[in-house]
C-alpha cells in the first residue's frame, strides 16, 4: 500500500479527508484487502485514543462500504443506462458513495453502541468536543448531489487551479458573506474576524 494511500486513509478516519482522498480510497477498497485491514486497524487506534471501548471494532467497516458501492452500481444497472451514460454519471455517483462512506466511518469510529442512547457528554479532551456532527439516533442518508450537473474528473493541474480559485473567491466574497452572518447569527460582529483583510 502506498504512503499516499495510507495518508488518505488516516485523514479519512480522522474526518479530515477531502473528496479526492475519499475517491482514492474508494477506488481501491474493493480489491485491496490490505487497505481494508489497515482501515480496521486505524479505526481501532483512533477509538482507543478517543477513550472509546474496543468492543465495537470487530465490526468490519469496509463491509458496509462494499455494500454501499454494490448498491450504487446496482442502482445504475437497474436504470438501464448505456455505457456512455454510466460513464457520464459516475463522477457524482462516486461522491455519493464517498459521503455515505464518510458517514459510515464516523459512526463506526464513534461506537455503534451509543446509537439509541443519549449522547454521553463527558468532559472533553483538548481539541475534541462532546457534540458530534453525527445524529446520535442513527446514520442518516445524506444526499451528496442534487444531480443536475456532472462533476468531471479533473486533471491535477485543473484541480490545483480550482483549489486556488476557491481560495481566491473566499477572500473576494468573505466580507459580503460576513456582513450577512453578523446580522443573522448570535455572535454579533465577531464573524468579521474571519476576514483576512477587512476592506473599508
Amino acid at each position, binding site marked *: 500500500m502506498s504512503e499516499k494511500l495510507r495518508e488518505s486513509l488516516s485523514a479519512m478516519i*480522522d*474526518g479530515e479527508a*477531502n473528496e479526492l482522498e475519499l475517491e482514492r480510497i474508494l477506488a481501491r477498497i474493493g480489491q485491496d484487502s490490505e487497505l481494508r485491514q489497515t482501515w480496521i486497524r486505524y479505526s481501532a487506534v483512533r477509538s482507543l485514543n478517543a477513550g472509546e471501548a474496543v468492543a465495537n471494532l470487530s465490526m468490519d467497516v469496509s463491509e458496509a462500504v462494499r455494500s454501499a458501492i454494490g448498491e450504487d452500481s446496482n442502482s445504475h444497472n437497474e436504470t438501464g443506462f448505456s455505457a456512455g451514460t454510466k460513464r457520464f454519471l459516475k463522477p457524482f455517483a462516486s*461522491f455519493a458513495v464517498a459521503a455515505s462512506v*464518510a*458517514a459510515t466511518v*464516523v459512526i463506526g469510529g*464513534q461506537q455503534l453502541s451509543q446509537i439509541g442512547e443519549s449522547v454521553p*457528554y463527558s468532559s*472533553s479532551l483538548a*481539541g*475534541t*468536543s*462532546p*457534540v*458530534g*456532527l453525527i*445524529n*446520535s439516533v442513527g446514520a*442518516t442518508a*445524506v*444526499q*451528496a*448531489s*442534487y*444531480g443536475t*450537473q456532472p*462533476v*468531471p474528473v*479533473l486533471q491535477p493541474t*485543473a484541480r490545483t487551479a*480550482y*483549489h*486556488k*480559485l*476557491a*481560495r481566491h*473567491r*473566499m477572500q473576494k*466574497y*468573505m466580507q*459580503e*458573506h460576513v*456582513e*450577512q*452572518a453578523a*446580522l*443573522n*447569527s*448570535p*455572535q*454579533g*460582529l*465577531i*464573524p*468579521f*474576524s*474571519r476576514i483576512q483583510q*477587512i*476592506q473599508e
Partner: protein
Amino acid sequence: MTAMKSKFPCRRIFRLAGCLAAGMVYAAQAAATSCPPADTEALQWLEKMSRSAQEVSYHGVVTFQRGDDMQVMQISHSVSGGTASERLTQLTGQGAQVTRTDHPLECLHPGHRLLRLGATDAATGSSLSGSCGIAENYRFSVDEGERVAGRKAVRILIAPRDMYRYGYVMELDRQTGLLLKAQTIGRGNKVLERFQFANLSYDEEVSQAPDVEVLHNATHSLPEEHTGAGHYSEQWTVRWLPNGFTATDSPAGAGKRRTYTDGLAVFSVFLEVLPQDIKPGEGVARRGGTTSYTRGMRLAGRPTLVTVIGEVPVNTARMVADSIKWSQEP
C-alpha cells in the same frame, strides 16, 4: 457602504414591509403544526441569548481561534434610546475596526427571528407560528457551564439532526444570557473554531481607543430592502436548501448574492457569468468553520462560476451549488 446607508431604511421600512415579509415566511411553513420534542430550557436560553445580544450593553476582549491561528479583539455594544451601536476593534493582525451604529432594537433579522421562535413554541407545547425554529434541525441539552471571563456560564450543547450543518457548544452568561463562548464542531467531534470572551463588563466603556488602521462601517441590508434591480436579479434561483434555511434578505436586493440562515449557520451563494469558457470542475478551500466551494459549469449554455461560502460542511455547499438554475432566460 457608508454609515448613512445603515441608519434610515430599517426604521422606515421594517414595520411595513418587514412584518409582511415575516408573515410570508411563516405562512409558507404553516403546514408544520407539531414540533419535535425539544429541550424547553435550552430553547429559552437561546432566546435569551438572542435578546441580550441586541439589548444589553457590554464590552470586553474576545479571542477567536481557528487551528493554530488566534486573534484578539475588543468588542463593545451599547444600547440607548431604542438603538444599538456595536464596535469590533482588532487588537492583533490587521488592526481594523468595524462599527455598526444606530441599529434599531426592533429590527429583527431572520437569523434572530428563528432563534426566538423555538422558545415561544416550546412554552405552549405547540407551534403558534407554524415553524418550530431551530428545534426542527438541532437537538439541545443544557449542562453546567464552566466559568468564562469570570462569569458563571450555562452550557448549551447543540447537535444537528442531519449532516448538512455543524454542531455547536455555547456557553451563556447565567445572569444575562449573553453568549460568552462558542465552539463550532465538525465531523469527528473536531473543534473547527472557537471564540470566547477573555474579559467582560456590563458597564459603560471607558477604555482608551486602540490604534486603528482600517475603519469599516458594517452594512445593514434588510429582508425588506429593495435596491434597484441589477441585471442578475431574480434571474437565478437556488432550488435546494437544507431544511430550515431562510433567505436573510430579499432576492431582489441581493443581485448576484443570496444568503441563507437556519438561525445558527449562515452561508452565501455567489454567481458569476464568465466572459469566456471554463473547464467544468470544482474546488474547495477551508478556514476554521468556513467552507468556500467553487464550481465551474455551464448554466443555460453560458460559462458560470458558482461559489458557496459559509459555515456549513462542504457537502452542503456542493448540493446548493448543484441546484442553481436560471429561473428566466436572460
